[in-house]
Structure formats: C-alpha cells, structure tokens
C-alpha cells in the first residue's frame, strides 16, 4: 500500500511535548480503507498520542499525517465512555449530529437507530449513571458511529471492562464493523485483544514510541469467537508478545 491509497498515512512522525519530552519517534503507519489495525505497546509508549495526532487533536512535531477525506468524519472512542451525565443515552448518542447541525426528529431517529444497533434501544431515555459499564461503552460506540464515520479511532476502549464483557464487546465490534463498514485504528496494551480484532498488528516500543514490528493476522472474516482457541491464534499472540518484549516492554 502506498501513502496515496491509504485512508490514513502517518509518515515519519515525531511528537515531543514541552513537558515530558519525546513521545513518538519516526512513526510511519498506513491504514487502508476498510482495514482494522491494532496498535499495541507498553503503557506510556505514546499509543494514545498517536491516535490524537491522527485525530488532528495535536500537531506532530515532525513528519506528516494525512487522513483522506477528513471531512467525511473521524470519530473517537475513549478509554472512559465519556458520556455527558446530564443527557439521556439517546441525547448523548445524538450529540455529534447536533454539533454537525442535524437536530430535531432526524437527529433523534438516527441516534435511535444506532442505539438499536448496539442493543440499547430500551435504554434510550435512561441516564448514563443508570447503565452498567459495558452498556456505557456500547453507548459510547453508538455515539461514535452515529455520524457514519469512515475512520473510527479507539483508545483502549475496553480496558476497564471485565474479561467476559470485553470478549462480548469484541464480538459486537466486529459485528458492527461488518454491518456498518468503517476503518478502525485500535490502540490497546492487550495482545489477545489486538490479535483477535485486527487485520494487522503494529507494535510500538517503550517511550518514545517507535514501530518495531508489524504482524499480519491472516485469520479470516467473519471471525467467530472460537478462533481464540485456535493454534494459529496462539502463534500470532506469541509473535506479537515477542515483538513487544524485544521493544523493551
């Protein structure tokens, strides 16, 4: 894939903070349209910074970041659900539409449809405080997808969930991806999660983050939950884990 074909093209990007020093060093990363790429790295390696650079929230100190069609919507899911506690679940999901100037019945209808798609139709009028952790995260994903983004950036979104909820959320995310269709850059420190979700795993070193390895994940789609028990899955997890250790994790 050349930089031109890619939906996301991060080229030799450095990020250095005035306080805290260099966070990323010479990172090159391309994501093709429709691809799901996981980025794994040890805590503090600059994974979140990389997402924030791609989202346009912080400028790179050097290098370039190009997102084809930035106007056609990027959405982001954070480590915390980041729902507004004073809004109902439906109005939380409708927020990005509202910011885009889509309001009233149309906004509500689109938000309700997205909520139904993540299985929260019955909780449209509930407040976030009334939901379980897993339901809040589903609402956050619905909010991200409501604008039909081409690119979904996910920053360790399931790190706080328990293992059973996390696995269910993985399967739901893959289901949504098949149904809705979006390109995903998924940041995590969980090797199993990275491999299960991705077409390709990019491994970052300890801070300042550099790309130390790329592991293709030829596991096929749709990817049933049982894949987690396969020998091929275990081999890939082992390969990513070795790359992580080699990078100073």
């Amino acid at each position, binding site marked *: 894939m050349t930089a031109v074909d890619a939906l996301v093209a991060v080229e030799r990007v450095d990020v250095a903070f005035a306080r805290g020093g260099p966070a990323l060093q010479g990172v090159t990363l391309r994501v093709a349209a429709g691809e799901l790429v996981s980025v794994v790295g040890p805590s503090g390696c600059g994974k979140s910074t990389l997402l924030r650079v791609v989202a346009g929230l912080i400028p790179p100190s050097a290098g370039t970041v190009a997102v084809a069609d930035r106007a056609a919507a990027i959405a982001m899911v954070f480590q915390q659900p980041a729902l507004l*506690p004073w809004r109902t679940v439906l109005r939380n999901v409708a927020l990005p539409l*509202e910011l885009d100037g889509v309001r009233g019945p149309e906004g509500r209808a689109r938000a309700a449809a997205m909520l139904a798609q993540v299985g929260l139709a019955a909780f449209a009028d509930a407040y976030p405080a009334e939901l379980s952790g897993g339901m809040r995260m589903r609402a956050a994903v619905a909010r991200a997808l409501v604008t039909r983004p081409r690119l979904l950036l996910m920053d360790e979104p399931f790190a706080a969930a328990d293992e059973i909820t996390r696995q269910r959320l993985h399967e739901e995310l893959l289901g949504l991806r098949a149904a809705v269709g979006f390109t995903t850059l998924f940041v995590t420190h969980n090797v199993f999660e990275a491999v299960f979700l991705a077409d390709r795993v990019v491994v970052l070193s300890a801070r300042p983050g550099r790309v130390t390895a790329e592991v293709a994940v030829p596991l096929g789609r749709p990817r049933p939950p049982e894949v987690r028990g396969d020998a091929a899955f275990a081999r890939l997890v082992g390969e990513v884990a070795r790359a992580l250790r080699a990078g100073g994790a």
Partner: protein
Amino acid sequence: MSGLRDIGPPLAVLGLAALLWHAAVVVFALPPYVLPPPAAVAAEAWRHAGELGAASALTGAAALAGLAASVVGGVLVAFVFAQSRLLARSLYPYAIFLQTVPIVAVAPLIILWFGTGFGSVVVVAFIVGVFPVIAGATAGFTSVERDLVDLFRVHGATRWQVFWKLRLPHAVPQLVTAAEVSGGLAVVGAIMGEVFAGYGAGARGLGYLVVVTAGQLKTAYLFAVVLAATGLGLVVFGALRLTGDAVCARWRDVA
C-alpha cells in the same frame, strides 16, 4: 430528609441553650439591657412580629436581588476567565479584591454613587456575594475532562458549542453550591448594606432595626431582630438547597 430524626437533635440543643441562657441571667443577676432572658426575647419577637416580618421581607428581597446579580455577574466573569488562562491570571487578583474589600470602607463610595436606599443595599449584597460564584463557575468551566473536550473537538464543535453544551452544564453542580454559599452571604451583605447605606424611617429592613434597637438599648428587641435575620438566612439557604438538589439530581457523576 427524615423529619424528627433530623430536627430533633438541633432542637434539643436549642432548648438546652435557652435553659443555660436563662440560668445565666438569673445567677449573675444581669440587667435586661445587657442580656434579656429568653422569654423576654420571645415576647418582644411576638409583639413586633408584624414589623419583623416586613423587615425580613424587605431585606430578603434585597438579598435575593443581590444573589441574582451575583449569579449573573459571577457567571459572566467566569465565562471571560474560561476563555484564556492569561486572561484569568491577569484578572483573578481583582476578583479577590471583591472578597477582601471591607464594606465599611467602601460604603461611603457606594452611597455617593448609588444614593441611600434599596439600590445601594443590593450593591453591597452583590459585592459580598459575587466571589463564590466567580470561583465556583470558573472551576466548573475549566475542570472539564480532556476526553470530553477532545470529543467535541473531533466533531468540529465551535468554541460556543463547547461552552454552551459542555462547560456550562458541566459546571451546574459547582454553580449550585456557589449559589448556596452566595445566598447566605447576600443576606449578611443586605443587612450590612442596610446598616451602612440603609433606609429612612419609611422603609425598615432588618439592618435598620439593628441600628435603631441597639441605639435605644432595646436589647430584647435587638435579639429578636438577630433571630429574624438568622431565620431569613436559613430560609434562603434552605430554598436554594432544595432547588439545587432537584436540579442536580441528574448530574450524578458517571465513573
């Protein structure tokens, strides 16, 4: 609230205090202009109930006007502070000035600029009450989690949308707390205002009654005025607390 269980203990303390008070008057044979017995205070309060009620209403109106001005003014100032850190750093010391300025010292200026009467009383209530709102609203506007601000930025929100849909609603709990503090202060401020820049014989607020009864050594009546002032403060605070609880019911934080 669970009725008697909440009210019982403070009432018992009140009864005990009245008992000790009465005992002190008897034991030390204090003259009534130094310390009238509680029964005399109650009798005076009863005898002047109409006047005390009218005075409380006038003072309460001034306090509420001062509180309203504090909330509006404080939120506007905090809005400016929230726009840039430099602006906030440059202006905050002058906001603290409002907190520390002795009202006695500026009272002559206030009378000079606003004359004596209701307007000046409201101005004093405002000066005394506005700082907690500035501080609370500024904290509320600027303590929004980074993820939430990023969420708005990713979706291309304007500065105005970030303020209106995020910072302002996010600040509501702090604003409610600030209004509670400010409401109590505004009552005190209104009474101070009446003492320094008060009314003539026509319009009598609690501050006016304090000055007159103290001047005439009507100590039992003065005590009754103090009780009325305390009651007014409690009513304002209680009303704000109940409204605030209702408003904040939805603001329960999400982990």
